[in-house]
């Protein structure tokens, strides 16, 4: 399993280095093992350089940059070993319109191979969906479903 961990790490890292610049419209990011000698306990470090900016501590990134970086990593793992479905609950909340646009483009691409279920308050994310389910509480405390079918 040490071997499998390393192989998976390298595949995910390769993918992450492609996915990040797509979501950030440039820039560069990669994963690093904190201890390459000890694959059973090594940690996973994330190194990020948004387009045009200098390489700095990941902690200094903005709220939206951190969220988008995490999305890039999640999508990279997903592309290496897809699950049949992916459930995203309001991951677009800290993103600005431009980043939401690139995020949605990527979801649409990946939905060719997996089902995506996305919870959102954002109108442009809703626009990407094939089916929209509205959850309402006409009667307080009791959830009801209203289905709005967008595409066929």
């Amino acid at each position, binding site marked *: 399993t040490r071997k499998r961990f390393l192989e998976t790490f390298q595949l995910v890292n390769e993918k992450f280095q492609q996915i990040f610049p797509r979501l950030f419209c440039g820039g560069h990011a990669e994963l690093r093992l904190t201890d390459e000698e000890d694959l059973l306990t090594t940690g996973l470090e994330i190194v990020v350089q948004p387009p045009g900016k200098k390489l700095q501590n990941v902690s200094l990134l903005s709220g939206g940059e951190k969220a988008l970086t995490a999305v890039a990593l999640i999508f990279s793992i997903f592309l290496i070993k897809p699950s049949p*479905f992916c459930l995203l609950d*309001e991951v677009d909340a800290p993103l600005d319109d431009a980043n939401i646009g690139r995020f949605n483009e990527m979801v649409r691409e990946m939905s060719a191979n997996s089902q995506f279920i996305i919870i959102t308050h954002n109108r442009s994310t809703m626009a990407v969906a094939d089916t929209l389910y509205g959850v*309402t509480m006409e009667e307080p*405390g009791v*959830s009801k479903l209203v289905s709005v079918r967008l595409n066929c």
Partner: protein
Amino acid sequence: MKIKRLEILGFKSFQDKVSLEFNQAITSIVGPNGCGKSNVVDAIRWVMGEQSAKNLRGKAMEDIIFNGTEYRKPLGMAEVSLVFSTEDGRVPAKYLNFTEIQVTRRLYRDGESDYLINKIPCRLLDVAELFMDTGIGARAYSIIEQGKIGMILHAKPEERRFLIEEAA
């Protein structure tokens, strides 16, 4: 296996039976604050075998049973079913002659709990095996809960390795 349908009855804010069809590539769930969207995510995690009430925002597992409102009484049972289609053929041998596989979980207020596959009672172990064999397991990178996306960057490096482990 692909998800076909989710049926929720008596789970959290879903007093009346609710059925969501998931036959499209991208399904979006929308609505005002507190109306039940994240509860749908909790329902999926729960029927897939979540054992910790904390991971479902509760203190005890009983918290996931519809607790009533100002005008309605609590219910005595929660039931969630997840229905999969077997058309892509990636199915364990014993299910090959089924067109769909329905996984059901029930919880009663007295703590009694049931698992069913295609309406036949089974053990949690059978459900866990089914999910493992079909690769549907609720992997950490396939369900991102509300507010949790930031944890990946704030986590310590040692805490992040599980993401690679789950994909390995």
